[in-house]
């Protein structure tokens, strides 16, 4: 990404913390303090970075125009490898009538940027809407100024590349830079606000009106991502590349694989310092139960961390083990929450022509970052700078501050991209630990987690046990659906390991804090009506049987939280209903869905795949290698049902099953997504490709392994992921809706693909596998079993 941040990497340490000139932000803070008149275009204050977030209702918080007639947007939305900032630049350039290249972004920073968490694929949705509103307001200010300067009515003015002209008269023109370059807008406006992802109506009737979408010239086009060129050239700087003068390299020492959450807290019994005495210049850093090593040279830290003998109190045998997990869920005392109860499910099932009753199982899965998380922290006696890959820097700051004993304002957090994160990987842990270690040693510390740390101490995507009952009438119309889910209790349940080690308890607030609750009664990590209300069902019951988290694994949102496991179950049952009703799976869905956008993605995916109607598993072959094709729907569940931010996805997947080896290979994924207005369709296609492969990996490979004491899948051998040799071809289809709000584009195809693979397996073999991943051992067991025919529990 074209960020103006590389100069930061070479600044001296002390200069770094007190620099005034690195980022020029056109704030008007000093002017306001002195009570001066608020005049647009007044000289900007080249301010010290100030603890944010800035006023969300000031144009200056979002946008600055520079003397060279370029603009900077100070978005709080980060580059997760998904191209979000490219889309935000398109939106700002569109509203301001600037060229794409004239709009830049800067390092996302608690002392510079607007608030914003890049969560739930909403960077382009919420972040985009806020950027659009601010840019529209900025344009209004600029045109008002130009109107005075050019002595012409605003309605007479035209803008191209930041040059305002009266009509097409190039002699009567003025640049944005002439009007407000390096100055302030000094304009209050009412920013768009949200509740649980739903946009709230604005109270002020006099907000600037964004550009008519029919007039878009940049939004909706395939602008190449600038960061890709840098990444391919090898010039892109990841957080792993950040270096500060005087910096030490650090590693933490943790037990190999986490134990039972809230029971097996790592507790140091003894540290044998002599175990690393042959490695010169290494220092052991310890605070309470957090222990690590720092060294001038990274390899010394790596081998010291491996070699240091730390005796830990043994973990209790308190986990059910991955084999016993689902029995443990079912026998647990639960705190039940009824999400939905409409009509009379039992009576309707009693009258149904066909009833399907089955149990589905989805595993704990890891974020599995390509790079283990890394952070660089510089903690002085009264201030802290933390450079890390948090998706929510303002929450990270709240979590770090109590560890350091600092007020929040003294902690500055900056975002530098790591690898993929897909949600709550260990970026909180590494930021917190780097900060504590830097404070302990009084020097900047670069802390790099190991592969084993990252996979063994992840906040895994939660497992899900589902009992479903559903019935259809003689016409293939669904009459009742009951979904009983065994889920973990707690809305947004990340227990930051480092806070636990240092403070003896999770923090009260911040990312990873006990105080951060997910939206909705059951929280983010539960099953909702919004995941299944595309099907029109008169009698419906959804119950979450919530199991306390203690004694299981740490969990947190993983890309499309709960959606792959929920849709694998739901869509499996829908296919079984279609089969029972002797209907083609696509035809069955058309009979039970009337929402045009759901039908639109179904049509797009099936058209691309040249879908031929037939009843599933009607052509099962006795060959050794058999093929099958399945459909799946997917969305990202929302706390409110069918709000304005729904994204619709459908997938058709072709697979091959080797009945001798049990190996399943996905050959081709056709993934269709309707995310409303796709700001950059090429970026959305890229997301569909990625989700198709990621979804294949979830369905066929990924499963956290653990025994009674701890997690055992801690490298790429024990935690399997889809490899290059086994990847499917992918055909991405973007269903563009110029006049709909943009919704998320990074999650919804994932559950559709997982579901479609399950259905393709049934089509190929005539056997329904109700637990994923579809590993060779599960496939062989299922093919040897007769208990998996539709209508009977697996």
């Amino acid at each position, binding site marked *: 990404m074209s960020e103006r941040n590389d100069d930061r990497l070479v600044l001296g340490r002390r200069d770094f913390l007190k620099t005034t000139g690195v980022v020029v932000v056109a704030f008007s803070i000093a002017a306001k303090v002195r009570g001066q008149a608020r005049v647009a275009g007044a000289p900007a204050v080249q301010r010290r970075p100030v603890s944010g977030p800035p006023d969300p209702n000031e144009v200056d918080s979002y946008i600055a125009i520079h003397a060279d007639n370029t603009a900077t947007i100070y978005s709080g939305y980060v580059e*997760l*490898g*998904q191209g979000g900032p490219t889309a935000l630049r398109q939106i700002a350039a569109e509203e301001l009538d600037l060229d794409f290249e004239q709009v830049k972004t800067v390092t996302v920073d608690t002392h510079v940027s607007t608030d914003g968490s890049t969560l739930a694929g909403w960077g382009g949705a919420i972040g985009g809407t806020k950027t659009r509103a601010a840019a529209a307001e900025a344009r209004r200010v600029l045109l008002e100024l130009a109107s005075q300067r050019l002595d012409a009515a605003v309605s007479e003015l035209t803008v191209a590349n930041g040059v305002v002209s009266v009509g097409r008269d190039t002699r009567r023109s003025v640049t944005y830079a002439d009007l407000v370059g390096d100055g302030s807008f000094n304009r209050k406006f009412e920013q768009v606000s949200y509740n649980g992802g739903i946009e709230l109506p604005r109270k002020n009737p006099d907000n600037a009106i964004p550009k008519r979408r029919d007039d878009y010239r940049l939004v909706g086009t*395939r602008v*190449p*991502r600038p*960061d*890709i*060129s840098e*990444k*391919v*050239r*090898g*010039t*892109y*700087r*990841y957080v*792993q*590349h950040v270096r500060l003068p005087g910096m030490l*390299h650090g590693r933490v020492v943790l037990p190999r694989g986490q134990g039972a959450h809230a029971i097996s807290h790592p507790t140091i019994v003894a540290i044998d310092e002599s175990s690393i005495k042959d490695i010169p210049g290494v220092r052991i850093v310890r605070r309470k139960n957090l222990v690590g090593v720092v060294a001038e*040279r*990274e*390899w*010394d830290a*790596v081998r010291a961390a491996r070699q240091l003998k730390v005796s830990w109190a043994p973990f209790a045998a308190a986990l059910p083990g991955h084999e016993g997990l689902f029995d443990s869920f079912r026998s647990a005392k639960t705190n039940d929450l009824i999400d939905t109860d409409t009509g009379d499910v039992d009576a309707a099932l009693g009258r149904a022509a066909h009833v399907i009753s089955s149990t589905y199982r989805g595993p704990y899965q890891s974020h*599995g*970052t*390509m*790079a*283990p998380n890394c952070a660089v922290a510089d903690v002085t006696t009264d201030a802290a700078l933390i450079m890390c890959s948090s998706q929510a820097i303002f929450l990270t700051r709240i979590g770090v501050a109590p560890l350091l004993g600092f007020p929040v304002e003294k902690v500055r957090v900056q975002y530098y*991209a*790591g*690898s*993929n994160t897909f949600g709550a990987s260990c970026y909180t842990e590494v930021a917190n630990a780097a900060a504590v270690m830097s404070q302990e040693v009084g020097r900047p510390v670069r802390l*790099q987690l*190991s*592969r084993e740390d990252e996979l063994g101490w992840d906040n895994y995507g939660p497992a899900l046990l589902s009992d479903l009952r559903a019935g259809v009438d003689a016409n293939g119309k669904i009459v009742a659906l009951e979904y009983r889910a065994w889920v973990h209790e707690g809305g947004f349940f990340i227990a930051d390991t480092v806070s636990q080690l240092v403070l003896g308890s999770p923090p009260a607030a911040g990312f990873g804090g006990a105080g951060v609750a997910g939206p909705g009664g059951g929280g983010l990590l539960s099953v909702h009506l919004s995941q299944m209300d595309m099907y029109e069902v008169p009698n419906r019951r959804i119950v979450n049987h919530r199991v306390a988290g203690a004694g299981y694994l740490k969990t947190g949102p993983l890309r499309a939280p709960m959606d792959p496991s929920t849709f694998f179950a739901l869509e499996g049952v829908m296919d079984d209903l279609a089969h029972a009703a002797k209907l083609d799976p696509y035809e069955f869905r058309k009979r039970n869905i009337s929402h045009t956008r759901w039908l639109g993605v179904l049509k797009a995916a099936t058209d691309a795949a040249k879908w031929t109607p037939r009843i599933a598993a009607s052509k099962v072959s006795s060959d050794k290698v058999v093929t099958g094709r399945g459909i799946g729907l997917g969305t990202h569940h929302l706390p409110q049902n069918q709000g304005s931010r729904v994204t619709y996805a459908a997938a058709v997947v072709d697979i091959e099953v080797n009945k001798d080896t049990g190996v399943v290979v996905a050959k081709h994924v056709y993934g269709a997504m309707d995310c409303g207005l796709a700001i950059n369709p*090429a970026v959305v*296609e*890229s997301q569909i*490709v*990625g*989700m*198709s*492969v*990621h979804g294949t990996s979830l369905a066929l490979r990924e499963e956290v392994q653990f025994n009674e004491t701890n997690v055992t899948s801690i*490298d*790429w*051998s024990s935690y399997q*992921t*889809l*490899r*290059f*040799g086994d*990847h*499917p*071809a*992918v*055909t*991405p289809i973007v269903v563009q809706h110029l006049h709909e709000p943009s919704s998320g584009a990074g999650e919804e195809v994932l559950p559709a693909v997982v579901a479609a693979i399950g259905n393709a397996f049934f089509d190929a073999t005539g056997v329904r596998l109700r637990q994923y991943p579809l590993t060779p051992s599960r496939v062989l067991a299922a093919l040897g079993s007769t208990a998996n025919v539709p209508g009977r529990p697996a």
Partner: protein
Amino acid sequence: MADEFKLEVNAEARTVAAAANTPLLYVLMNDLGLLGPRFGCGLGQCGACSVLVDGVEMRSCITPTSAVVGKSVTTLEGLPAYYATRMKISPAPELHPLQEAMIAEQAAQCGYCYNGQIIKGAELLFRTPKPSEAEIRSAMNGHICRCGTYPRIMAAIQRAAQAIAANGTAASSETEQAVNV
């Protein structure tokens, strides 16, 4: 105890002092300040750290620095020049055709694995200038991409092979051509 190693990295002689058996990765990242090879697992399992050693892809995270003394090490940064030398192209192009193709396909997402994907793909194209799909799948199988961009890496390798065949330069192309993978 630090030993002195005389290395050849990206066609330049470099002398570094490092503890015996320091993996090459840490020397390249921290002593030579290179951004291409990077840490992904430290176990030789993922390929993020790959470099070419005398034209052969190796995992620098598990290769002792001492093992490459007297050999020629090429990182992502030095790949275009190394390609030019191998292919007897002068002047050297700004980018290897596979890098051009990766941009044309808009292949990368987070891009962290792309150091290794490009190094491994370039090694394949030196050895097998017109690889079949099966040959690409086999050669690339040890390089993990967690963003799931394998289909676009496949397309980029095929595009680069065509470009090399057509006189060693990747055709500049519009992203519109790269949508169906």
